[in-house]
């Protein structure tokens, strides 16, 4: 497969050793991207008695969590047990598995910056991309978004609200990139050479431990450029060859090993498990 290369390559380096799993990033992401809270009842459904309730937020197959923090375990018993938290946005793969399977070109990797786009008005909801993504980074709108009364007046201008029936995913808060470019133009700077921090995602912004660092992987003046090359840096299931633009770093060997756990020991038992928590 041909890899698309871009002059600018937005990427993340997530320090697993700094993530406490507090979840502020997940809330910040939902707010920035207009992901509605999960409500059971649909006030516009006038035959509620005849229909099922909408899904509960604890059913993680039906929630929309563009960024999800997974709980990792080293699989050992007390007292050798250790935990770690791993935030998982869309990996914005260099060689995405989701793009070629889309029958309507609603997702593509084609723009400077290398962000894999997802255009929901074009999406027909076939969910091939979800099946293709090994990172479970894509989500299907099983239900229409419903904000409890009054809550929809405070929507973010950053992201269009999606109806049910389409697939969506993390966009690296892409409209902030467009905003940053406008700011650069306004200030007379080159929009294709943004300084470190001029464009930052909502999750990276809000993270209290600054576990998420965001920037241009190709730009030596951006922190991520070096961080991604650190000796403890790794990517998830790297051996699949999808070339993710999200890097992780951890001094803990078991965490790094879990990151490439795909068939880690040839399918034998005893590999550490990661609880889907």
């Amino acid at each position, binding site marked *: 497969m041909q890899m698309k290369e871009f002059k600018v390559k937005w990427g993340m380096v997530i320090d697993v050793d700094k993530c406490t799993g507090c979840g502020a990033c997940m809330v910040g992401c939902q707010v920035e991207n207009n992901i509605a809270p999960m409500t059971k009842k649909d006030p516009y459904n006038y035959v509620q008695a005849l229909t099922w309730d909408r899904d509960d937020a604890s059913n993680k197959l039906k929630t929309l969590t563009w960024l999800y923090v997974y709980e990792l375990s080293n699989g050992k018993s007390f007292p050798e047990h250790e935990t770690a938290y791993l935030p998982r946005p869309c990996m914005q793969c260099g060689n995405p598995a989701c793009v070629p399977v889309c029958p309507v070109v*609603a*997702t*593509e990797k*084609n*723009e*400077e*910056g290398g*962000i894999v*786009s*997802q*255009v*929901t*008005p*074009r999406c027909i909801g076939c969910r091939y991309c979800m099946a293709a993504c090994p990172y479970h980074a894509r989500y299907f709108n099983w239900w229409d978004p419903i904000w409890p009364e009054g809550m929809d007046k405070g929507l973010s201008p*950053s*992201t*269009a*609200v999606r109806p049910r029936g389409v697939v969506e995913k993390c*966009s690296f808060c*892409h*409209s902030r990139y*467009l*905003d940053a*470019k*406008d*700011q*650069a*133009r*306004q*200030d007379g700077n080159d*929009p294709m050479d943004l300084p470190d921090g001029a464009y930052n995602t909502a999750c990276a912004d809000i993270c209290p431990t600054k576990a998420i660092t965001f920037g241009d992987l190709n730009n030596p003046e951006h922190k991520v450029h070096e961080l991604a090359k650190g000796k403890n840096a790794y990517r998830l299931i790297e051996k699949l060859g999808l070339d993710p633009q999200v890097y992780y770093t951890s001094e803990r060997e078991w965490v790094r090993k879990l990151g490439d756990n795909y068939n880690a020991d040839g399918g034998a038992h005893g590999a550490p498990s990661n609880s889907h928590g």
Partner: protein
Amino acid sequence: MEERRASKRCGGVLPFIIGFLATCVLGWAVLPGLFYEEIEQPFKFSHAIHVESEGMDCESCHYFRDDGSYAGFPTNEGCAECHAVDPEEAMEAIAEAGIDPSDYNAIIAAELEVIEDNLLSGEDENKAAEREYVVKYLIQSTEVPWLNYQYQPDNVYFSHKAHEGLDIAELAEMKNELSSVVDSAVFDEPGEQNCNLCHMKDIDKNDTPPAFERNIISGYSKMTMKMWKCERCHALKGQPNACYTCHK
């Protein structure tokens, strides 16, 4: 028999042609108009008065903010710089007069000093429009729900800043290629600013704003630029046509 068949065949073309022509005429001349309903702007805003009579610049209301975003429509805050009716004082006066603040006609009829003394227009017609703005929006602290002739849906991110430098004179070279995207008349007299490329031509000289033509099915404006037009120009100008160049 043969004769009859021939005549039938001949007669068969005529109804076909009649039907063909009828729907062609219908489809070109009548039906397209039925797809749109005309909606008037919230009140009669005259660009001509503001620009020609008062000598205001386009940038007085339509400017770039410090963050590079574009302030398309003026807000009450901007309008109040000249239309100096104090909402608090006005509301107090309305309460004193015992009028329901949401009863616009009663407020207008009451000719309250606090409003009347601060109206800037001379002619009655203009004064009425200004009064309407002041009563319905300014003193109510409600922003004017302007109708955007160039309406784009939420999934489109249009950057005015990125298009600021487009030069009509330069684009004139691509006049033919762009004929389906831009009204060719725009290229006849390129002004200093490129607004005419996409916006209503010479709106700055307009006195009564034209009605907003809303598509009854899609809800978009008749002037909403469709994606293929954006793409055509981007392609001609060598600009990216990736989804995320314009979508959010």
